[in-house]
Each structure stands twice: as C-alpha cells, then as structure tokens.
C-alpha cells in the first residue's frame, strides 16, 4: 500500500504543478496546452521505446494520422471532440498495426530507418492528397463542438487546457496500469532479453506489434488534441523533426518511468520557449549544449537527478 | 630462478566505484606455476583483470620486474609481456579465426604454431569467430593470447567447456610452458584437483582477499579448502 502511494506521488505532484501553472500563467494557456499535448506524444513514445525497447524515429506518423483523422472526422462527420479523439486513436493504432507488421520484423538501425520511411510516406501521401488534406497549406475548416456538449473551446484556451490535461491524465493512468500488468512485465522482459522471452514461449514479435499499436493509438490521441485545439492540421505533423524532438524530450526526462517523459517534455519546451524569446538565433547552441550535458552528466535523464544528488551527498558524508 | 617478476602491493580495485579487491599483496617469481582458487565471486577474475589493467584501481601499485606499470594501459602491459586468456573468451566475433590470431600477433609468433597446438582451429580458420562452438572459442582464446608471446601468462578458467581429452592436452601445454623456467603461468581454476596438480604454489581467494598463499601440496587435506570453497580433496 505504502509503495503504491509512493509511486503515485510524482504524477500527483505533476498534476498539481499543472494546476498551479494554470493559475500562475493565465496568459500562456496556449503554450501550456501545447506542452500537455506533446507530453501525450512523448508518453506514447515511452511505451514504445522505454517499455518495449523499440527504437523509433517515426512516431510522428501516428500523431499525424491521428491529427488528420480527427480533423477530417470533425469536418465531414461529427465535430464532437471526444468522438474525434476516439477516431484518431483508432486511426493511429491502425496505422501502427499495419506498419508495425512490417517494421517490427527488423532491428536496430534498419528498424529506425523503416520507421522514418513510414512517416515520410505518410507525409508524401498527405501532400499528394491535396483535395482531401489541403496539402502544404494545411487542413482547415475544423470547427469543434463543445467538449461533452458543455464546454466551448474559448479564445483564451481554458477549455483546451483542461481538455488536454484530462486526456494526459487518463493516458498516464492507463499507461501506469499497463506498466504494472502482466503485459507490462512482459514488455520489460522483452527489453531485457528477447532470447529468454522466446524461450518461455512468447512470440516477441506479436508482443511488440501490440505495444507498437497501443503506442500508435496514444500518439493518435495527441495528434487529435493538436488538431482540435489548433483547428488546423499541417503536413508538419508527420515531420521527422517532431519525431526527433519527442525522442529528445523522452531521453532528457528519462525512459521507462512515465513521469520522466512528462518532465522531459516540460523542461525541453520550457527551455525552447525561453530561448526563442531571448535569443532564437542561437537556440541551437542552447539545445545542443543541453542535450550533450544530459547525455554526459545525466545519462538516465532528469528523473535521475535526485539519486545523483543523493549519491553526491552520501559521498560527502563519507569523506 | 626466483627473481620477482610481478609485485602487487596494497592493490585495491573494482569496477566503477565498487571495490572488489581489498588490499592484495602478492609477489610472483619468474618461472613459477601458480594456481588461484576460490568460490564464484571471490575476485579471481578481478585479480587477473587488474594485473592486465582492465579494472579500475583505487589504490596500491603493480611493478613488473623493476618497472612500475600501475598507470599503464593494457596494451602497454601486453607489450611488456603480460598475456591474459579471459574467462569470457571474448573472441572477436566479426573477425575470422585467422584474423583473430593475426590481430594479436606480435614478435615472432606464427600462425603455424597456433594451428599445431589446435588443429581444429586450422580446419575452421576462415570461419567467423562468432560461429565457433563454445569449446572452439576457448581454444581460439588461448591460441590468440599465445600469439602475443607473453612471459607472464594469466589463464582464467581455460578448461571450461572443453572436452576432457583436450583438457588433458592443454594441461600438458601449460606444464610445458611452465617448465621452460622463464615464463610464469597463473592459472585460475574452479576444479581444485586440476589446479593443485598443476601448480607448486596455490593462492586461495575469498571476499576479494588472498586468504592462503603457500605450497599447493599443503592445501590438500587442509580444512581451508573445505572452509572456503566447500570441497575436501584428499591426497
């Protein structure tokens, strides 16, 4: 019981932080909402990479699929946000499943290349299908109905914020449950030793396809949030940069622990925001330095800072 | 005959921040066959790795002959005459058998000598190192180290996974090397029987220290063996 409570502490603290930020920065709700949406995407990557050990640089494929699915659904079928969310989740999952069937037959660099290729093909298809997607100009004309029929998306972005925060919280709880379930344990097992996993009768391939599909679904949710809040979907939602940045955020925070993903997103986006406001021209120096510093001094990510500090403290006490 | 070839004084060492060896003092004489025995985790491998320069030393000094080698990287120690057959074999997987041998070759060691010792390797010489069977890898590991022409040969459980006949042959080879009187052989062996038969001097390790250092014969029948590794050998 005690350990259960302890393990819920970091996420609850993050939730509290989100609420505090909401009141502390009422003028930056749009920015905060983007962080929340990105956090959902990075969480999906944590499932795929942190838990299942699938190194991918193409997570944006499912984000984009979700975004376009939600956008098109809202325009042509029904502008209800929650319904759109579900449709987007399914779209992301479906694409992940189909591409996963091929991609997950491979490993290492080949796998990374294939994930990039899948995202590139999606990008190209969305570009080609201008009549449906709006091509490079973006998919416009998304007008959402109120969330659950109650809360209209507003100018300041209050509804958007709470909506995204709710989705993030639900995804977080879901992933926490999965992490502790037999399925989650088996993903850790695959991460540790695929050979042993096979030797206990598990088809590593199908297990990975399942994880990849789930991850695709969650990335789809993130895409849907972005489409619904921004009311526009652009080709950039399939971009390599998005996949790469999500990866950086995840590793920055620390893989395998869900709150690491959220923390990494928060820190990265915040630093970016700060740098963009102060010296955008040299932003790359900041991010490059930050990334290098993390790999060299905090290889397990920001979530390892407390342990690192403890170790430092302990050493001092010792001498 | 008895001039010291290698001296360890107050050596503490380990992997990263951990200390595995805790204050080792040891002198090896030229031409002396020595056995090291001890339980799993006693620190035998760590001792050999430390002599080779593969672990992190936290304190103490190592001298080879009159030369202080404490700060030398492994390849310089190898050049100075130390050779190690690692417990994990560590075959270069992406090299062929022959390339494995060539990579280590120095001085006047030749491929023919290695193949004469292990004809099996000659048959498989174009094979990738990673494709060898367990025992073949062990043979290659030994042959490869011999290619560097070491004066101080450190053998970490070299008989593991080898067919009994090959074990016999190999022990004969080690005996021959030791018998030259100029080369020193240190043998780590789990099988106390084989170890004590081979060496004149035996080191018994436990918990990162040397708990006994003396003539091999004295260990037979002593309760030290029983206490530290849980077997009794009878002479």
């Amino acid at each position, binding site marked *: 019981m005690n350990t259960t409570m302890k393990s819920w502490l970091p996420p609850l603290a993050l939730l509290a932080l989100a609420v505090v930020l909401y009141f502390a920065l009422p003028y930056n709700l749009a920015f905060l*909402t*983007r962080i929340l949406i990105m956090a959902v995407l990075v969480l999906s990557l944590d499932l795929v990479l942190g838990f299942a050990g699938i190194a991918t640089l193409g997570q944006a494929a499912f984000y984009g699929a979700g975004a376009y699915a939600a956008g098109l659904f809202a325009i042509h079928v029904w502008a209800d946000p929650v319904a759109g969310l579900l449709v987007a989740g399914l779209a992301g999952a479906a694409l992940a499943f189909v591409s996963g069937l091929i991609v997950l037959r491979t490993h290492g660099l080949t796998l990374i290349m294939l994930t990039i290729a899948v995202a590139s093909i999606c990008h190209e298809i969305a570009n080609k299908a201008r009549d449906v997607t709006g*091509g490079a100009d*973006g998919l*416009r004309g998304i007008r959402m109905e109120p969330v659950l029929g109650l809360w209209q998306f507003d100018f300041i972005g209050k509804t958007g914020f709470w909506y995204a925060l709710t989705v993030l919280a639900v995804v977080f709880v879901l992933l926490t449950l999965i992490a502790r379930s037999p399925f989650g344990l088996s993903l850790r097992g695959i991460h540790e030793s695929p050979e042993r996993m096979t030797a206990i009768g598990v088809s590593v391939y199908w297990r990975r396809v399942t994880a990849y599909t789930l991850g695709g679904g969650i990335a789809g949710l993130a895409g849907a949030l972005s489409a619904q809040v921004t009311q526009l979907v652009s080709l950039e939602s399939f971009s390599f940069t998005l996949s790469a940045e999500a990866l950086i955020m995840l590793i920055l925070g620390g893989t395998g622990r869900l709150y690491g993903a959220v923390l990494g997103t928060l820190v990265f986006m915040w630093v970016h925001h700060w740098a963009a406001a102060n010296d*955008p021209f040299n932003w790359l120096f900041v991010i490059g330095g930050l990334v290098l510093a993390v790999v060299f001094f905090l290889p397990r990510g920001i979530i390892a800072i407390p342990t690192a500090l403890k170790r430092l403290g302990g050493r001092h006490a010792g001498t | 005959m008895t001039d010291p070839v290698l001296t360890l004084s107050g050596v503490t060492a380990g992997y990263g921040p951990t200390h595995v060896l805790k204050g080792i003092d040891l002198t090896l004489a030229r031409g002396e066959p020595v056995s090291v025995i001890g339980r799993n985790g006693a620190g035998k491998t760590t001792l050999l790795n430390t002599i080779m320069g593969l672990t992190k030393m936290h304190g103490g000094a190592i001298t080879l002959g009159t030369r202080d080698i404490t700060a030398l990287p492994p390849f310089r120690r190898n050049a100075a005459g130390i050779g190690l057959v690692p417990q994990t074999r560590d075959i270069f997987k992406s090299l062929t058998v022959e390339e494995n041998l060539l990579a280590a070759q120095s001085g006047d060691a030749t491929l023919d000598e290695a193949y004469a010792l292990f004809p099996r390797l000659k048959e498989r010489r174009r094979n990738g190192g990673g494709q060898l069977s367990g025992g073949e890898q062990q043979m290659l590991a030994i042959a490869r180290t011999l290619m560097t022409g070491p004066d101080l040969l450190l053998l970490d459980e070299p008989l593991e996974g080898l067919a009994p006949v090959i074990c016999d042959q190999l022990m004969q080879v080690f005996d021959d090397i030791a018998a030259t009187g100029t080369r020193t052989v240190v043998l780590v062996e789990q099988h106390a029987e084989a170890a004590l038969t081979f060496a004149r001097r035996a080191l018994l390790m436990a918990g990162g220290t040397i708990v006994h250092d003396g003539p091999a014969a004295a260990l037979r029948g002593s309760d030290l063996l029983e206490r530290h590794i849980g077997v009794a050998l009878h002479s």
Partner: protein
Amino acid sequence: ADTIKVGVVAPYSGPFAIYGKQFQEAIETYVAQHGTTAGEHEIEFIYKDVGGPNPDQARSLAQELLIRDQVDYLAGFTFTPNALAIAPLIEQSQTPTVIFNAATSSINRESDFYLRTSYTLWQVSAPLAEWAYDQGMRSVAITVTDYGPGIDAENAFKAAFEAKGGEVVDTIRMPLSTTDFTPFIQRVRDAAPDAVFTFLPGGPPTFTYTKTFNENGLAEAGITFLGTAETEEVNLQGLGDAAIGLTTAYHYSGAHESEANDAFKAKLTELFPDAVANWASVGAYDGTHLIYQMVAAAGSDGPAAVEAALGLEWESPRGPVTMDPETRTVVQNVYIREVERDAETGLLINAEKGVIATVGDLGWDK
C-alpha cells in the same frame, strides 16, 4: 496617445531564420526612417520565433501576443499554414494582421482582417505566361516542386498560357526532397519546348536546379528558363554564372531604379552592412508602412484600421502599390527581369527588362 503594440510572428531560428532576420531588419529600417510614432501613437514591435512551418506554435504565439502582450496588430507570417492557423483568433479579436510573405491567395478568404503586402503566386506567374506568349514562345514545359505553392504556380501559368493559345507540352511535379534534378531536366530537354517554367523553394533546390539546367545545355538548345522567386537577391550571388540569362517575373528587384528603393537600400545597408534587400524585406517594409498608416488613422480600433487600409496607395521600393479593397492583397507592377552581371560592382543583379503594370491577385477567384 497610447502605445500601439505590433506582434511579429516569424521564424528566427532554424533553416528559415533568414526570413525573420530580414523582416526585423526591414521593420527597423522603416522605423529609423519614420520614427516610432504614427499619428499620435507610439508604435512598439514584439518579435516571436515560430521556428518554421508550425501552425500549433503560430497559434499559441499569436494567442500569447493577443492575451498577454495585448498587441493590437499582428504581422509577419512566412508560411501559409502558420497564417491560416490564426484566422479564428484574429476574427474573434478583430486584429488587423499584415502578412509579409505567405503567398497562397485563399488565406485572405479566411478572415477580413488579413492584409497582404507580399504577392500571390498567381499574381506573378500568370503575367509571366502571357508575356512569354507575347515574346513568341508557343510551347512550354512546366516543372514545379510538388507542394502547395508549386502547384499554385503551375495552375496559374498553365491557365494563362493556354488561354493565350500556347501549348504546355509536359508538366512535372518534382518531389520536395529532390536533390538531383537531372532526370527532370533531361526530360524537358528531350521534349524541346520553347521554354521551361519552374517553381522551386528557395535555397539548395534553386542552386542545383539552375546548375543542372546549365550543365545539361538547355540554354544552348534554345530553351528559355522562366521563373519567379528563383533568382531572389539573397542567394543570387551563390548561384554564380549559372544564373546569368535566367528570366523571371516578380514584383520586386533589388536593382529597381527609383528614389524610394535607393533610400530604402541605403538606410538598410547603413543599419545592417551585411543585409541584402529582397522580396522578404520589401514585404515587411511595406507591411510596416501599412501598419503605420492604419495606426495613424484608427489607433487600436481593428475594423476601422482595416477600413482605412483598403484602397490605400503608396510608393513602395518596388514601385507604386495599392491595397486592393476586395482581395486585401496589394495591386502592384510585375517586372520581367533577366540576371546580369553588373558592370560596376561585378555582382549579379535582376535587371528589369519589362513591366506589366498594376496586377491584382489573379488567384482570388480560383
């Protein structure tokens, strides 16, 4: 007598940072020439980095500018999706928004608060087609980069050229990721048209395309190069001799001879010695002028400001322009230029060879 704030959303980091830099330099040049007051108001600019084509970011920046910084005007916008993403915001907050660059006609249909001081692809491509026909070119191949702007350019050129009675022998849409253009250029060569019309994004593709065009001897084979922004001034020197003789139709040439242009360039290089005036800087410069006029006329009253802007005429460094009341894109001259080496400076320039006067946004009804 209050301070009017203008939020400028543009890329200041990443591969497109040059746009943001040019916008800012042009704005500061205008301010240096005209002071910080318009009418009875002080004007202040706030710059925000959007990084690249990123509608989420554009929208959140615009929101931040409108809500926290309380800006009364928005400006900038290099990419169409970024501009489109803020349409609901400016509609709701009634904020006049001056587009310095994004060149898709239909943006302005999304809100009455959009005003554009750049151009649209129809505006320059269609006149070029007509001019080409008038020069006696009867067959043309079209090669455009396969994305929104490229396809706009293709449609515009094709429609205008065929309306005149010319023949488009081949249209090729080249992938955005193309690095080696030889296959397309060989295809054009084999088709042997009178000219090839092309549209490429700035930077590396333009460089390789023009190189390849020359190396494969298309010019010798009598195929005229027709383009738009390909020879813009910032990268022009980089194209080298390969650029000489390329024909383009565009609304601004750095070599335009007029007092306004000379004054603009002089001030610009005085403030920023390395700066090169091009379409992006002139778009921002004129946009700033438009904002000053609106502020002077209406202060922070958005609808009134837009009202004041419609039909406004002024002498821009590019020549005379008018803010079209219907399309809210400037009506302007389109110049036919040819790249030459300037005898005095030894630099490559876009020498104006002809002018098609006062062209509006021809893409508005498409």
